[in-house]
């Protein structure tokens, strides 16, 4: 048989059948041609057009050529198709008419008659021509005539039924051509025959099927008919079509069973409803299980037999079709289906009785058989990549073996009892003997099952093998859930076998999987199993934890929950005697923290204050639980500036009533998805600092740490290590609390001790040695204890302190955490210059109490009791500076250190003095200016000479002894200087005046007077300058525009004195002279000085020496004009190099006296010049070469005798002209 063009032809058993073609006529001829024919026929495919719209197919034809016998022809009513001759061929090589007429024609006629008798129309006459024979017999008719004769005699209207094959055994093109034509004809006719006969068969079959509702219709008969068709298709290698036949039979049968179940009984089905006696599984190693087929044919088959046979045929065809995975899939369906059908029949009619376990055996054997069959025709790699298809069978087999094990008492610890053993024997009997085809296979399903049922150990081995293989397969294709489920079965098995240590890993694995995906019921169930396992293992901690989870599990009944709760409690009470050992369990299963509430609600207390925390805990336990202690461990941090932070936090996070709510687990299932806290998002804007424009914006997830952490460790919820007990120094405790099921309010009280931030970290409830710990309290809960250090502020009551008068200063003590005791005092240490005026009766008083710590300000009121704010009067002595600082050191009772406070006092007065002259008489004037806002009363003004000149007298010219000086005003005092002898060149004076605030009533203290010390130098008058303007000669009065003469007379008033001894002094034979420079300046521009306005004169140093200078001036205005100023300077020569530096200094000194004009410039200047016009030039020249210098005479030395005199100037006649020209 020619295999289809497959790379790896499957090792399958094929049918030996081929369509039958009979051969009549010349047998020798056929024998010679047969090899070529059988070789050539299947070489080329032929299109087979099908009826009923079925798709045409290309088909390679093969045939089984047999000698024609009349017995081969089917009799009427015979439905056998396999033995049906599809074509009848008559072979002849006759070329002689005589011979033809003599024998061949008769033979042909006989053959035709037989065919006709059986109404067979599929025939063909082949005339083989041989050139050799033709040549020998030259007198014969042309060859065509024989063929024509035959056609004429037999093929009326069917001339194509006679073909010529020329020289079949030669190798010529003609031969080839002839062969091709012949083969084509042969194939066509064969197909025609197929079409016709199969069509007829199918029609008959359908007719038969339509009769299925009639009584007496037999499914088995029909089965045989349709299978015949399937065989033919298989014979033609049309496996697809063959499979269709079986599938139709399958569906028909299934439908019957269903209908039967629904009450529509068909009699024939009762044949299948025999008690199941044999359950030896599928047989797939033979192409046709003739044994079972026989049963069906004899209508003795049970349902299982029929199904087994049907499936074995389907399996064979599917394997031909290279679809082994479909075999696996169909096998599973079949097995499920059969089990269902048997149940159905059993249930409906009670006819099919199936011994318990029989089906399990059948399924188990069948699963393994199918798997082994598939493995037999596939290589390892193929199998590995198609596990998804086969794993179902593995799993099913495992399941069935398990149930067999349980059934036969192979799983229990004690082993099977006698009843179990009887059952096992019955089951083994139903298996029958092993079939010969697998007898030599070591791992045959039969052997496996027999062995597995033989002993507890063998069963365990086989069951574990299968389970592990199944788990491995599931895992390898990523069906984790299925793997876990099988693992759970395995765990159950281990538990039955009393090896909980092996079971644990499977239970944990499954539980983890269910937890991760949040399947509540499986979680509960698995946990219950795990609890039992852990109890057996003695894992106390784990057991208690699982128990706590189960006790809080709402999917359990109340009794179950209570049982687990009691387990915990009884453990706790047992262990109560041996303290020290702690078992830490996570709290969430025991109780849940709902909310928390601080009193005070802002969660801020001062040191020593009392804080209470009220928490609501929702107990998950079904019964009241007495907890010895409930504690919150608190983390303490001394964080600076945390107070503000907390305040900010408060406003953001806390509700007004101070209740912090904790996110309850929304779902009763502790799934990782549901317990994730919601995202906390906030917007973020960043503005550029320069122009406040937005440059960054975004969203910040504030609780990202929680979210991420939970995801990572979500699966390890069960791990007891998750709840580590934190050892902390700060703990809030509440003893002996009974937690009722549901919400419980627990209040903690604490007295705040150290200042800082306290973060609530863990909540922990202890029941005996069992500690339930909530490892993290989230969201963050904090309370703050603040402490304020005592603080002292000293500040004046007025804007500023003035020196010299009593004023009030406020002392503010903010006690903070310090408690002021009776008798506490502030000790003030002050400098002598500042007096503190205390009043005996004046004590401090507490006037403001601690309400809110946020308000630090306190004011003071004098009073009679103990301190909070203290208030004292302070007085201090004054001095003569604009401002001055005084430090006060204060010793406070709460500190070992002194507090040093600096007080700034302002001077209320500014004092200036000046020397006044009148000829040689001298006066001292003191000006006191009040800078303060207060009015003062001045009294007792004195000016004393502090020098030793005894002959000097100061005669006050002030009249009033008391004077009021108002704010921002000045008061002048004048004294005349009188002396009898030569006065000292300088005079040291001290001015003092008593003062007191004008508004103040009488003060209890005497105030120090205000003093001012100063010095007056060179106050003796040396020169008297007199200027006189006389009108031009011949006129009475000066006239504007006309030159007048100015006479300046400089008179020396005293002899040589100490004041004259300077560089300007020259001595020549006891004759002293000094150089002076005069200068006439009219600052008010009343006069125009004509000619030289200044000059240097040599002045004899002798009394009464006079120097006169004349110059011309012209009045520019009319009226009483003050005379131009005449100034005198000392003219100092430039003789010494080293003094040049000094000169410069003194010049600069002079500059400050507003003598800023250089002499040299002025010496030749004959015209009026504005001041300072050449100053810069002079400055630069001065640097270059030594210049004579000027020094202004001290104000006391030169007396301007004509100061204040005025000259009457009358306007000239034509003054209008002048006015215009000058201005």
């Amino acid at each position, binding site marked *: 048989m020619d295999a289809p063009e497959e790379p790896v032809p499957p090792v399958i058993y094929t049918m030996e059948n081929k369509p039958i073609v009979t051969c009549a006529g010349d047998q020798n001829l056929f024998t010679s041609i047969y090899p070529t024919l059988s070789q050539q026929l299947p070489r080329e495919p032929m299109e087979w057009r099908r009826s009923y719209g079925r798709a045409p197919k290309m088909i390679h034809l093969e045939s089984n050529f047999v000698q024609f016998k009349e017995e081969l022809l089917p009799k009427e009513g015979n439905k056998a198709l396999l033995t049906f001759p599809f074509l009848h061929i008559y072979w002849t090589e006759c070329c002689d008419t005589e011979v033809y007429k003599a024998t061949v024609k008769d033979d042909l006629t006989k053959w035709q008659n037989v065919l006709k008798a059986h109404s067979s129309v599929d025939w063909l006459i082949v005339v083989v021509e041989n050139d050799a024979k033709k040549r020998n017999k030259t007198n014969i008719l042309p060859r065509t005539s024989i063929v024509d004769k035959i056609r004429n005699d037999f093929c009326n209207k069917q001339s194509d039924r006679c073909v010529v094959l020329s020289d079949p055994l030669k190798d010529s093109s003609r031969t080839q051509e002839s062969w091709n034509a012949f083969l084509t004809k042969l194939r066509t006719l064969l197909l025609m025959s197929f079409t016709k006969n199969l069509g007829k068969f199918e029609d008959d079959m359908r007719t038969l099927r339509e009769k299925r509702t009639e009584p007496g219709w037999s499914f088995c008969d029909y089965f045989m008919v349709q299978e015949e068709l399937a065989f033919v298709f298989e014979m033609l290698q049309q496996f697809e079509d063959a499979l269709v036949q079986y599938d139709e039979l399958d569906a028909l049968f*299934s439908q019957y069973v*269903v209908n039967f*179940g629904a009450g529509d009984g068909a009699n024939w089905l009762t044949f299948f409803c025999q008690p199941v006696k044999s359950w030896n599984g599928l047989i797939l190693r033979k192409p046709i299980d003739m044994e079972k087929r026989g049963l069906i044919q004899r209508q003795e088959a049970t349902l299982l037999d029929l199904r087994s046979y049907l499936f074995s045929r389907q399996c064979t065809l599917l394997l031909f079709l290279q679809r082994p995975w479909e075999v696996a899939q169909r096998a*599973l*369906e079949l*097995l*499920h289906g059969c*089990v*269902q059908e048997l*149940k*159905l029949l059993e249930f409906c009619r009670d006819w099919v009785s199936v011994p318990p376990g029989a089906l399990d055996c059948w399924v188990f054997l069948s699963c393994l058989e199918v798997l082994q069959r598939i493995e037999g025709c596939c290589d390892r790699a193929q199998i590995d990549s198609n596990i*998804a298809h086969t794993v*179902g069978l593995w799993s099913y087999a495992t399941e069935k073996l398990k149930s067999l094990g349980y059934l036969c008492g192979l799983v229990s610890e004690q082993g099977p009892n006698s009843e179990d053993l009887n059952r096992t024997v019955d089951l083994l009997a139903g298996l029958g003997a092993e079939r010969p085809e697998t007898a030599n296979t070591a791992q045959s399903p039969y052997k496996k099952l027999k062995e597995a049922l033989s002993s507890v150990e063998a069963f365990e081995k086989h069951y574990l093998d299968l389970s592990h293989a199944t788990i491995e397969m*599931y895992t390898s*294709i*990523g*069906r*984790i*859930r*299925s793997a876990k*489920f099988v693992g759970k079965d395995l765990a159950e098995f281990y538990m039955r076998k009393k090896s909980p240590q092996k079971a644990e890993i499977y239970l944990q694995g499954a539980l983890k999987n*269910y937890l991760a*995906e*949040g*399947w*509540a*019921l*499986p979680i509960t*169930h698995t946990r219950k199993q795990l609890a039992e396992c852990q109890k057996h293992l003695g894992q106390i901690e784990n057991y208690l934890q699982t128990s706590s989870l189960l006790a809080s599990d709402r999917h359990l009944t109340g009794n179950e929950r209570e049982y687990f709760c009691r387990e915990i409690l009884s453990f706790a009470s047992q262990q109560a005697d041996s303290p020290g050992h702690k078992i830490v369990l996570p709290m969430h299963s025991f109780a849940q923290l709902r909310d928390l509430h601080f009193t005070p609600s802002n969660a801020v207390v001062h040191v020593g204050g009392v804080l209470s925390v009220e928490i609501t805990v929702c107990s998950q336990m079904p019964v009241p639980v007495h907890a010895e202690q409930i504690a919150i461990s608190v983390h303490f941090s001394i964080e600076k500036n945390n107070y503000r932070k907390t305040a900010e936090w408060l406003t953001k996070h806390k509700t007004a009533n101070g209740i912090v709510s904790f996110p309850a687990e*929304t*779902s009763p*299932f502790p*799934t990782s*998805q*549901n317990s994730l806290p919601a995202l906390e998002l906030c917007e973020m804007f960043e503005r550029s600092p320069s122009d406040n424009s937005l440059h960054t914006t975004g969203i910040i997830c504030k609780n990202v740490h929680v979210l991420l952490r939970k995801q990572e460790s979500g699966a390890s919820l069960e791990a007891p290590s998750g709840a580590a007990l934190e050892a902390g120094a700060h703990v809030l405790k509440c003893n002996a609390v009974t937690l009722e099921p549901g919400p419980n309010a627990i209040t903690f009280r604490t007295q705040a001790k150290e200042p800082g931030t306290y973060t609530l970290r863990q909540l922990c409830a202890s029941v005996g040695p069992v500690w339930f710990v909530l490892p993290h309290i989230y969201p963050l809960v904090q309370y703050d204890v603040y402490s304020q250090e005592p603080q002292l502020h000293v500040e004046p009551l007025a804007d500023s302190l003035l020196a010299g008068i009593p004023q009030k200063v406020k002392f503010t003590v903010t006690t903070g955490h310090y408690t002021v005791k009776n008798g506490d005092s502030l000790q003030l240490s002050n400098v002598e210059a500042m007096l503190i005026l205390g009043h005996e009766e004046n004590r401090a008083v507490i006037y403001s109490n601690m309400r809110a710590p946020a308000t630090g300000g306190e004011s003071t009121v004098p009073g009679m009791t103990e301190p909070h704010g203290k208030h004292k009067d302070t007085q201090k002595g004054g001095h003569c500076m604009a401002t001055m600082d005084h430090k006060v050191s204060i010793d406070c009772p709460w500190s070992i250190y002194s507090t040093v406070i600096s007080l700034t006092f302002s001077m209320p007065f500014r004092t200036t003095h000046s020397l006044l002259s009148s000829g040689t008489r001298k006066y001292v004037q003191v000006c006191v200016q009040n800078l303060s806002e207060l009015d003062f009363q001045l009294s007792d003004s004195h000016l004393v000479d502090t020098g030793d000149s005894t002959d000097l007298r100061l005669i006050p010219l002030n009249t009033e002894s008391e004077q009021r000086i108002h704010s921002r005003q000045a008061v002048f005092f004048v004294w005349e200087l009188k002396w009898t002898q030569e006065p000292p060149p300088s005079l040291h004076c001290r001015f003092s005046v008593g003062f007191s605030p004008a508004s103040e009533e009488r003060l209890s203290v005497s105030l120090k007077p205000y003093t001012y010390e100063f010095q007056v130098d060179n106050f003796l008058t040396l020169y008297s300058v007199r200027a006189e303007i006389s009108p031009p000669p011949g006129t009475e009065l000066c006239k504007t525009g006309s030159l007048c003469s100015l006479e300046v007379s400089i008179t020396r008033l005293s002899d040589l004195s100490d004041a004259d001894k300077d560089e300007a002094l020259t001595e020549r034979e006891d004759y002293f002279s000094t150089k002076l420079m005069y200068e006439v300046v009219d600052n008010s521009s009343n006069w125009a000085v004509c000619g030289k306005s200044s000059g240097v004169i040599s002045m004899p140093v002798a009394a009464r020496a006079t120097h006169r200078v004349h110059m011309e001036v012209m009045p520019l205005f009319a009226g009483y004009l003050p005379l131009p100023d005449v100034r005198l300077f000392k003219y100092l020569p430039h003789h010494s190099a080293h003094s040049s530096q000094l000169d410069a200094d003194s010049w600069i000194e002079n500059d400050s006296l507003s003598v800023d004009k250089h002499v040299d410039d002025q010496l030749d200047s004959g015209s009026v010049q504005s001041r300072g016009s050449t100053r810069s030039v002079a400055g630069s020249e001065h640097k270059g070469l030594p210049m004579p210098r000027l020094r202004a005479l001290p104000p006391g030395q030169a007396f301007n005798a004509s100061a204040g005199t005025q000259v009457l100037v009358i306007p000239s006649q034509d003054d209008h002209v002048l006015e215009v020209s000058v201005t």
Partner: protein
Amino acid sequence: MAVCVAVIAKENYPLYIRSVPTENELKFHYMVHTSLDVVDEKISAMGKALVDQRELYLGLLYPTEDYKVYGYVTNSKVKFVMVVDSSNTALRDNEIRSMFRKLHNSYTDVMCNPFYTPGDRIQSRAFDGMVTSMMIQVC
């Protein structure tokens, strides 16, 4: 008649699961959970297909001796799993399909409820009623 109907979130936790009260609920939970393996497999195999051509109905996920488990997946990867009694041969693929479509419509209604938070367990009475009708229905 369905014996168990489950709606499973994208993350594979149950949004809704209900089974006939006569049977052991736990068994169905395990069954539906295990069937997610096949759902995942089918979805990942389907991933290559174009989204708009995707068939939401996943067909028979796996048969067991007593039940058939069918699957359906919405475009947002919410899975519907329906367990049907094997003996109930009257239920053909088409019926199962239409049941799933009904379920999907009802689920869509649930999602349209503004008071329903996606991801929460479904507690809608309308949905419940629809499932109930599916459970008694055909039989």
